[in-house]
């Protein structure tokens, strides 16, 4: 597969949210607004790229029986690094996302890419895979966030264009499932062509 292909396959063909259906917890929980979705996507992408690089580096040295604990330690380390760095330099973003950052540790996408890709590919390929899947995840979360924010709050990225409160259910959990389901149908219908 070409280097460009490694990145772009994460956008549509192996889109983590709409095709692989991985990492649903942060997807449903953080996409109450477009901005939250975007920030969560970027935070996950950061961890994904670093953990992919590091795991592809150490993979040959890790005995099979302990690879899951090793990967989890590596991922948890990078998540904590991210948490400390965000707290120090972007406290406002940390304030809105704070609750969900530690959840990146158990995000299946990160462990899934480590298992399915990083441990048997080169460092460069793993980094590219992390970037691609990360961008795919970020785009998906942002799209879900945009739809939920329009329907639920009548605004996009905090910019209000419909007066009033919007349909409340879309800000809450049921709306997350509805939007995700319909977007998944739409995405797969368009992607199949």
């Amino acid at each position, binding site marked *: 597969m070409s280097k460009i292909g490694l990145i772009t396959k994460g956008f549509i063909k192996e889109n983590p949210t709409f095709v692989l259906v991985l990492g649903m917890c942060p997807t449903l929980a953080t996409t109450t607004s477009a901005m939250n979705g975007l920030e969560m996507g970027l935070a996950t992408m950061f961890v994904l790229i670093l953990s992919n690089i590091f795991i592809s580096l150490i993979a040959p040295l890790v005995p099979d029986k302990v690879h899951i604990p090793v990967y989890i330690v590596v991922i948890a380390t990078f998540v904590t690094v991210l948490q400390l760095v965000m707290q*120090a330099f972007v406290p406002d973003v940390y304030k809105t996302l704070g609750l969900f950052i530690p959840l990146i540790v158990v995000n299946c996408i990160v462990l899934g890419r480590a298992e399915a890709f990083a441990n048997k590919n080169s460092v460069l390929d793993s980094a590219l895979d992390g970037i691609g899947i990360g961008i795919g995840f970020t785009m998906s979360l942002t799209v879900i966030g945009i739809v939920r924010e329009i329907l639920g709050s009548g605004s996009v990225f905090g910019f209000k264009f419909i007066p009033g409160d919007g349909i409340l259910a879309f800000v809450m959990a049921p709306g997350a499932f509805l939007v995700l389901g319909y977007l998944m149908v739409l995405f797969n219908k368009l992607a199949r062509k």
Partner: protein
Amino acid sequence: MAAKSNLTNMVLCLTAVCLVCAALLGVIYTVTYEPIRDAAAKALVESIGKVLPEGGSLSEEMTGENDGVAFIYYKSSDASGNVAAYAVKSKVVGFGGPLTIMVGVLPDGTVYNTSVLECSETPGLGAKCSTDEAFMAQWRGFKGNLKVRKDGGDIDAITASTITSRAYTLAVANAVSFVSSINTEDNE
């Protein structure tokens, strides 16, 4: 090809990975320790500035207690040394966890302004307590019945977030009654 899964290899590998990760975390913790502390201190000063009338000289952090609840508060005095206002840090349990707000209270019990310090309310619903203009504006200069309208008070709750609004109102009410308790103490 992965290394063999015998005991020595597994122990060595886990130990090495944990050591490297712990070292990395140690470094990052040390590097970010001061910025995190500064950011928290800056947020605190900003929130105090927001809830107090301008121009007073601010006291050091003080602690007090009212009805078994401990408070951290700051006094702002005017040029002649009279207390102009209090900034009280008030903590209650909201819908999603602790809700900590800074409340500026004038000595006569009028709320000057409020500002959110810590909030883990539902994004898009309760979290609006720090962004919803109408909800935030009603605290400025508020003096009246500190309860949400549903409970017979004068506070307009955030749509669909009555629990958060109630918690917020309770935090303000606690701060106000705390200020009136220290006022009586001072006058005695």
